[in-house]
Every structure is written in structure tokens, then in C-alpha cells.
């Protein structure tokens, strides 16, 4: 009996050892994300953290590469009819959702339909589409009412909202209601049981995923996962996040504040790098429904005094992490241009600005800048703009609260005396401002993004851009949009900046891109 018992114990110990070894061999990438993942649905929100989660779990029909070219991703081949009114897509072999079901045409159509109800470019695509039909399980077709040159760009949109593909039964969810089941066909699987909102998100490698053969390039190419498990641990306190990276409790910190860069650079096992080639762009947004910024001359006056260098230093702390950008379209991308930018780019001219303010008929109306102290990028810009407006002799008041209050308050269309506002600041990631499709450029009055500018001419020019058929015509059309925008001033660009990433030197294979992708990353 004793022999049996001892044997059993030995067997149990051996099992424990094997299990322990297997656990030890598991490669876990420990990642500190830029924010806490709260909403799991990348269609209902534009939050970048949810977009990044989307890229972990879901795949896309097309994807944008580092040359701004749209490449097939889930799609194997596609055809466009000669009249450019019919697009036929065929899916790759072996695409499978995380629940084991194959990816079908019906899934793709339902997913794109849902996305198109929430995304600004998607809405334009939906306007152009007459019908979407599943030819069979692997082939589907979009029939257009009129040619829409940006069809593939829309389907391969890099940043929020990204047209991720979900199972049809999930994609049928109302686009204004968050999905609760996270089933994609992407390179990682979401482990819902281990999700602790406010703290931890866990993904495991999708072993059924068949990557493309091409090398990875931004969101395109082969999504080869080289770790077994990824753990996102949200650390709200930046000093603690830095300490965790220093101590080796984390492998990668997605975005660190500039003041901690010198501290982390002291550690030879940590690399601090700008892995986002485009960075983000700060903006000053006006309220067009209320005085005084419903007055074009007053908006133009600010173009002559906004000093982007101040904002670069304020936000990024160091010129290495930011630069000026005198374009409405993200600098470093094909449509960026300095056409019409002279008032913003030239010598700062307070006299000219004051002259325009006089001509605007400004009578000392109170200007309220709303800010959020818990969002350093927003608050820094707000402080600089407040000081600038005071120097111009304007009657300005900074009203700071938290982000939750700001984004509620900015929806108010009332005058400042009744809780309204005049200016708020925000920022967009580079890919979101690369073309006239960006939401801040929509000029449809109360149907526009917060601020509600109305300029029919800009809308005509944007539509002309949507209607272009080639890159050269597109560039010409976007230049025309920009020229008018510098006259109308729907918003003012303040800076193009990068929040660097920091990672342990045992990591390699990071994809240099405007979005953080976690495939191809190797941990030694």
C-alpha cells in the first residue's frame, strides 16, 4: 500500500513538475496600455484603447500599410467592374472565428453595414452603395449607385472606427448598443473570464489563425504572433508604471509622459523610442453657434498669433517628441500641404491679430475655454491658449474640470452665460486627420462634430475630393479643401507630437506604426 501511495505521490509530483515547466515556458508579454479598456465594442466607440483591443481580436478585409497603400487582409482577391460600380471580394481560405465557425460573406456584410452606421467615412461609403450581396459563403459583392474611389480605403481604414469583421449574429447588434461577446477571427483571443476592468485584460494566441505570407507593415501583412499570452495591466499612476518597467514587472509601456523619459533612459535595459511615425495632433476647436467665435475674423485673428512651438514644448516637453505642422492633413502623409497656411506659419503678428479683432466687432464678450485637468494634453493646450487670448486683450475665462465633465459640457449649444463654451482643445492620432474625410472638417452645422461649423463651400470641396478618381486629382481636391479651411478656420492645429513608448530590451519586432500592434513581437 505504501509503495502505491509513494508511486502516486511521485506521479503527482512529476505532473506538477511538467505543468510547472509548461507554465514556465509560456511566453507572456506584459504590456502597460495607454488607457483602461472599458468598452469592448470598437464600433460604438472611437476610443483608441478599444481600437487597439479590436486589432488584437478582430481582422479586417483590407488594411493600410506603411506606404499608405491599402492591402488585402482577409480578402484573397477582389475585382472592380469597368464602370467602377461593382466590387466583388473573395475571402482567404481557412478564416475562422474564435468560436470555431468559419468566416462567411454574411459575416463580412453585416459587420461592414454596422460599422458604416457609426463611422464618418463608412457613412459616405454607405451613401454610395446600392446593395451588398453574398454570392456564396466566400464571395460577396458591393454594388454602387455612383463610383466611390475610397471604397478600399474605407474598408482598410487604419484608425477609429476600423471596420472589424465579427460573426453575423453579433454584427446584427444595434450599432448604438455595445456588444458583449468578443468573438473575432484575429490573431489573439480575448479571455473574458480574466478581464478585470480598470486593471487587467488578457489575450491568448489564436492558434487557428493563418497569417498572410507578406511581411508585416502597419495593419497589413502577416500577423504572426510570437508570444503565447499578452497581459495588459493598466497602471493609472505614471510613476508606478515607470517603476514597474524599471523593476521588470512590465515589458512595454505604450505611452509615457515626457517628464519620465530621462528617468527611464537611465536604465540600460530599457529603450525609449518613438515608434509612432505620425504621432498625434492637437487642435483648438471653436463653438460656431455662439459669439464671439461664430465670427470668422476672430478665428482668423488667432491664426496670426498661435505659436505651435509653444504647444509642442508644452505637450511633448522636448522638440525631439514633436514638431510644428502647418497643414490640416497630418504632416508626413500624402495629402499634407502648406497651401494657405501663411497666417499660421509666418511671423507671429499681434498687431495684425488685434486689427482683425477690431474688424470683427468684438465687444468684450466673455470667452470660456473649457478644460480637463485629468487630461494633460488638453489642459496644457488650454493654459497656453488662455494666456495667448489674454495677451490679445480678450475677455477670457478658463473653466477646468475633469474629462467626463468636459465632454458632456461641450455638447451644450447654449451661450456661455447658460453653461456653454467658446473653445475646447483635444487631439487626434495622425491617421484620423490624414484626409478631408476627418470629422473635424465636416461642415454641416448642427450635424457636424462638436463645435458645429457650417460652410457649404468646404462641403462642396470635400465632396469633390470624395468623387476624385486618382491620387493626383485627390491631392488637388484636398489642397482646395485646405485653402478654404485656412480662410474659414474650422479648427486650428496646435502641434504634432509623439508620446514615446518604453520597453525592455529583450523585446524585438515591434511594428513602427501609428497604432500599437502586438503581433510580430518577440520576447527573449
Amino acid at each position, binding site marked *: 500500500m505504501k509503495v502505491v501511495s509513494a508511486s502516486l505521490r511521485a506521479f503527482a509530483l512529476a505532473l506538477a513538475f511538467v505543468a510547472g515547466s509548461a507554465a514556465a515556458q509560456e511566453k507572456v508579454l506584459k504590456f502597460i496600455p495607454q488607457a483602461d479598456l472599458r468598452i469592448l465594442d470598437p464600433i460604438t*466607440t*472611437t476610443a483608441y484603447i478599444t481600437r487597439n483591443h479590436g486589432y488584437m481580436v478582430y481582422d479586417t478585409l483590407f488594411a493600410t500599410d506603411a506606404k499608405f497603400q491599402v492591402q488585402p487582409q482577409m480578402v484573397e482577391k477582389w475585382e472592380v467592374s469597368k464602370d467602377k460600380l461593382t466590387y466583388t471580394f473573395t475571402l482567404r481560405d481557412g478564416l475562422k472565428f474564435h468560436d470555431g465557425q468559419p468566416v462567411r460573406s454574411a459575416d463580412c456584410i453585416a459587420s461592414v453595414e454596422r460599422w458604416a452606421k457609426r463611422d464618418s467615412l463608412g457613412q459616405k461609403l454607405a451613401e454610395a452603395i446600392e446593395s451588398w450581396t453574398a454570392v456564396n459563403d466566400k464571395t460577396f459583392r458591393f454594388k454602387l449607385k455612383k463610383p466611390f474611389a475610397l471604397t478600399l480605403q474605407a474598408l482598410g481604414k487604419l484608425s477609429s472606427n476600423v471596420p472589424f469583421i465579427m460573426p453575423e449574429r453579433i454584427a446584427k447588434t*444595434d450599432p448604438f448598443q455595445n456588444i458583449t461577446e468578443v468573438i473575432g477571427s484575429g490573431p489573439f483571443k480575448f479571455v473574458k473570464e480574466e478581464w478585470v476592468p480598470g486593471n487587467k485584460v488578457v489575450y491568448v494566441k489564436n492558434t487557428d489563425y493563418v497569417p498572410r505570407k507578406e511581411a508585416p507593415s502597419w495593419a497589413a501583412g502577416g500577423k504572426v504572433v510570437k508570444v503565447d499570452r499578452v497581459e495588459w495591466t493598466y497602471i*493609472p499612476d505614471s510613476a508606478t508604471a515607470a517603476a514597474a518597467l524599471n523593476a521588470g514587472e512590465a515589458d512595454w509601456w505604450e505611452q509615457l509622459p515626457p517628464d519620465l523619459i530621462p528617468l527611464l533612459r537611465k536604465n540600460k535595459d530599457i529603450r525609449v523610442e518613438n515608434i509612432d511615425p505620425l504621432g498625434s495632433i492637437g487642435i483648438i476647436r471653436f463653438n460656431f453657434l455662439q459669439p464671439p467665435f461664430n465670427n470668422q475674423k476672430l478665428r482668423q485673428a488667432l491664426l496670426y498669433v498661435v505659436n505651435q512651438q509653444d504647444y509642442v514644448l508644452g505637450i511633448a516637453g522636448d522638440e525631439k517628441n514633436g514638431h510644428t505642422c502647418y497643414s490640416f492633413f497630418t504632416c508626413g502623409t500624402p495629402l499634407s500641404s502648406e497651401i494657405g497656411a501663411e497666417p499660421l506659419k509666418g511671423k507671429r503678428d499681434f498687431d495684425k491679430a488685434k486689427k482683425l479683432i477690431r474688424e470683427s466687432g468684438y465687444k468684450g464678450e466673455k470667452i470660456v475655454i473649457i478644460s480637463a485637468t485629468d487630461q494633460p494634453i488638453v489642459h496644457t493646450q488650454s493654459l497656453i491658449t488662455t494666456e495667448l487670448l489674454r495677451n490679445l486683450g480678450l475677455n477670457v475665462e478658463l473653466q477646468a474640470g475633469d474629462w467626463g465633465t468636459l465632454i458632456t459640457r461641450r455638447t451644450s449649444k447654449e451661450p456661455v452665460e447658460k453653461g456653454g463654451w467658446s473653445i475646447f482643445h483635444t487631439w487626434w492620432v495622425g491617421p484620423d486627420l490624414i484626409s478631408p474625410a476627418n470629422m473635424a472638417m465636416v461642415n454641416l452645422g448642427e450635424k457636424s462634430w462638436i463645435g458645429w461649423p457650417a460652410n457649404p463651400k468646404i462641403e462642396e470641396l470635400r465632396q469633390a475630393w470624395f468623387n476624385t478618381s486618382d491620387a493626383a486629382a485627390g491631392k488637388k481636391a484636398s489642397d482646395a479643401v485646405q485653402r478654404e479651411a485656412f480662410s474659414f478656420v474650422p479648427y486650428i492645429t496646435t502641434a504634432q507630437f509623439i508620446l514615446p513608448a518604453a520597453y525592455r530590451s529583450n523585446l524585438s519586432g515591434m511594428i513602427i506604426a501609428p497604432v500599437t500592434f502586438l503581433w510580430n513581437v518577440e520576447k527573449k
Partner: protein
Amino acid sequence: MIVYVLRRLGATLIVMAVVALFVFSLLFLTPGDPAAVIAGDVATADDIQRIRAKLGLNEPFLVQFGGWVWRLLHGDLGTSIFTNLPVTTLIGQRVQPTVSLTLLTLVVAVLIAVPVGVIAAAKAGTWTDRLVMGFSVLAFSVPVFVLAYLLIGLFSIRLEWLPVQGYRPLGEGLWPWLSHLILPSIALGTVYMAFIARITRATMLDVLAQDYIRTANAKGLAPRAVLTRHALKNAGVPIITVIGIGIALLISGAIVTETVFAIPGIGRLTVDAILRRDYPIIQGVILLFSGVYVLINLLVDLSYRLFDPRIRY
């Protein structure tokens, strides 16, 4: 005593109902809209309106309040607006870290602070007393987060003895659990310890000046017996009261500690929910806190009899 306990529990229900009404009303008046937070930075006003309608936020106050109370009576605290997870699940995930942190802090603080306070009182006016009081003033003066960073810098970064952040459940083993709680407990407990030590000293000095202590000493009782059996027991009521109040302080202090040490506890859940206007979580957590406070007060009141048999309920 049973009647007293039942009466107190009945009063608790009334308190909770008032708290519930107050919290619900307060959230209505607070600026900030969860629909706007969900919609994100690029949403239009129409998008936000649609989300508000979906969430039922456009319903009148009484309809929303009535619905909430009705669900509450059925044991349903609601669903988080953002995560779509039940509030009970979210609170359940966070209870263990906060309870672990609070209890460990409480036990260590009481075990250290009470004897230190007693010694300081017994040695009143000596260098030992001055040293204890000096440390307690210092402990009072250092903010929790400053102490936390100092501890992380020394014990986690320089000496590499303890982890910087996070929490491991007790199920993963005693040391993983303890190692993640030592630094947060010290950071959180230092002020608390100083507070209890000072109160213990002051109370003990009062008691030591009483006639019956002089009598005990005159009878030739051993000084230790006088201190523990006669003085400390009689000083117990105010000390226990302070410990009870201190637990409430610990829970609120845990918010800062949990943030600095990235511990997924109730404190962080509350702050995150407030920043995002996740109303069901805020309501659930405040109800929970109110219940805990009332229960602690009840236990403190009941414990008085252990120290003073003259107390009747």
C-alpha cells in the same frame, strides 16, 4: 442585547434607503454624462442623444429611481454602463484586494500602535515617549503617496525585495499575496498607526492618573499587571472607538494606496466610475460602503461591553 441589535439593523435599512435616495439625486445633479463619455471624442450631439435614449437616461428622475429601487429589491445592483458587466461581478472582483489590504493594515497597525502608545504613556516625559511622539508627528505629516513612492524606490527598485505593484489572490499562495501587500499596508497604515498610538497614549495617561491605579500600585501589584489588566482595559473603549473610526479612514485612504500600487480594489473602482459617470457602479459602491460603515459602528458599539461591564444595551 438581541433587541438592541435588531433595532440597530432596522435603523441601518432606513439609513441605507436615505443614502440610496441621496446618491441617486446627487448623481442627477452632477455635471457629466455617461453617454458623452461612451460616445468618445469624435461623436456628434446626435450620437450622444441616441446613446442616452438606449441607456434610458432621458427618462424622468422618478422613473429611473423607481426602476433602480425595484431592481435593488430583487438583488440586482444593475449593469455597468461601459463594461456591460453586472455591478455585483465588478464589486466581487474588487472586494478581496481591498479587504486584504485593509485587514492587514488594521492588524499590523493595532498590534504595533497600541503597545507603543501604552509604553509611551508608561514612560511619559522620557526620551522613549519623545521618540514615539516624534515619530507619530512625522508619520502624520508624510502624505500616503510620498511614503508609497519612497517605499517603492527603496524596497522594489533598489533592493528588489518586493514587487512594485499589483495584487495576487491568497489562492496563489501566502507569500505572493503578502509580498504584494506589505508596502501598500505600510504606506496606508503609517498615519493610522500614529493616530492610534497617540490616542492610546493620551487615554492611558488619563487612566493612569485615576485613583484606582494609584491604589493598585500602592497594593504592590506588578507594574505590567497594572498597565495591562487595570489601565489598558479601562482605556479600551475610546481606543476601540478610534480603531472603528480608523477603519473608515482606511477604506477611504485605500483609494490613494490602490492607485499608487495599482491594486484593483474597490477604491480604484469607485474613482474610475466617478470619472466616467458610470452611475450603477457609483450607486452600488456607495451602498456597499454605507452598509460597511454602519456594520462597523454596530460592532464597535457592541464591543464596548467587553471593556466596560457597566454598559447595558
